[in-house]
């Protein structure tokens, strides 16, 4: 009796191949969009949402950007050649979408940002015990002040806990430069939080 040759998906399931490989197999080889869509969303929707949320601050903005990101991902995944990890490719698209959004916003509100946002900071309560929401808001205000490159590096490292190696693949920047950017960003955010008297 001829033994049944397992399909790649069965092989993948039996041999514990990574979820990323399963996603790519479903979407690129098997053409099972429903399963591939579900698996990718289960694996990445929250992570991408919080990454984008860290960069664009509000839920409304994050919702717009994450939708654009995911639509772009599914429309282009057939062209993904596996030269980088799926994970870093997804983060690169999300980061680019968030930066494009921020640039549009900056252009739209270039006049207002300077005055209003800085003044708002000084109105944060000078209290020794702040609740989580206030802390989050203060942190977001601090992140908003960073230049785009430092903001991206800060969010990838602080919120997403991405390694410098993966960050280097995502942003096509050397690890040394990323460490320097994160160090600068940390100093700025920490100073900003200290100035708002947000002691934890």
């Amino acid at each position: 009796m001829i033994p049944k040759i397992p399909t790649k998906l069965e092989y993948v399931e039996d041999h514990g191949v990574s979820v990323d490989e399963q996603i790519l197999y479903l979407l690129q080889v098997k053409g099972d969009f429903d399963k591939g869509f579900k698996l990718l969303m289960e694996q990445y929707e929250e992570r991408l949402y919080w990454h984008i949320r860290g960069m664009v601050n509000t839920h409304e903005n994050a919702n717009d950007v994450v939708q654009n990101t995911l639509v772009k991902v599914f429309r282009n995944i057939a062209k993904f050649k596996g030269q980088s990890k799926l994970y870093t490719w997804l983060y690169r698209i999300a980061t680019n979408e968030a930066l494009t959004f921020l640039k549009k916003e900056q252009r739209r509100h270039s006049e207002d940002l300077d005055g209003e946002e800085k003044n708002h900071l000084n109105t944060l309560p000078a209290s020794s015990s702040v609740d989580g929401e206030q802390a989050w808001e203060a942190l977001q205000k601090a992140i908003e002040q960073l230049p785009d490159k430092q903001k991206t590096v800060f969010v990838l490292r602080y919120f997403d806990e991405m390694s410098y190696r993966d960050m280097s693949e995502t942003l096509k920047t050397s690890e040394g430069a990323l460490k320097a950017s994160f160090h600068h960003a940390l100093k700025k955010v920490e100073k900003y939080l200290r100035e708002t008297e947000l002691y934890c």
Partner: protein
Amino acid sequence: MRNMKNKELHKELKEQAPILSELKKKGYKPTLPDGYFEQLRREVRAQLETPAPAKSRHVRKMAFSPLRLAASVSLLIGLSFLLFHFLRMPQLSGTENIASAEEIEAYVFSHIDEFDEDMLLEYYVADEANGKEAESATKEEDPFQAIPDQELDEYLDDILDDIDETTLENLL
């Protein structure tokens, strides 16, 4: 926010940013609307079912910023200055059409008898000495020679990010 699994990050935060380290440990995350991710899936699928908009070739509009304006004015002044001085330079007869090194060389060779020998010798010695001096100065004084171009660019980008537009304009 996930628990801080990354020990390296934990160490970085503890050493460099104690407030951020504390915030990270508390792990606060704002609440999202109920069923948000289910809604997100539905919306993404709906968008994917509509055909992608055709890519239109659009001309990128020139955005005018004070920085660009300042750079353009500086360039214009610089060019005007050079043109002004070039026009005021005394012209040697027969040299108006000299445009390239080959033409200069040809001119010198055809008029070699008209040059003072001592002056030519003096010029040659001075030129050779200057060349050697310049070569050694380049070797000794260029601290960036050992740094790869890409790293230098990234470092300069970083510095540029930190400078606000006003400071940059003042530097111009």
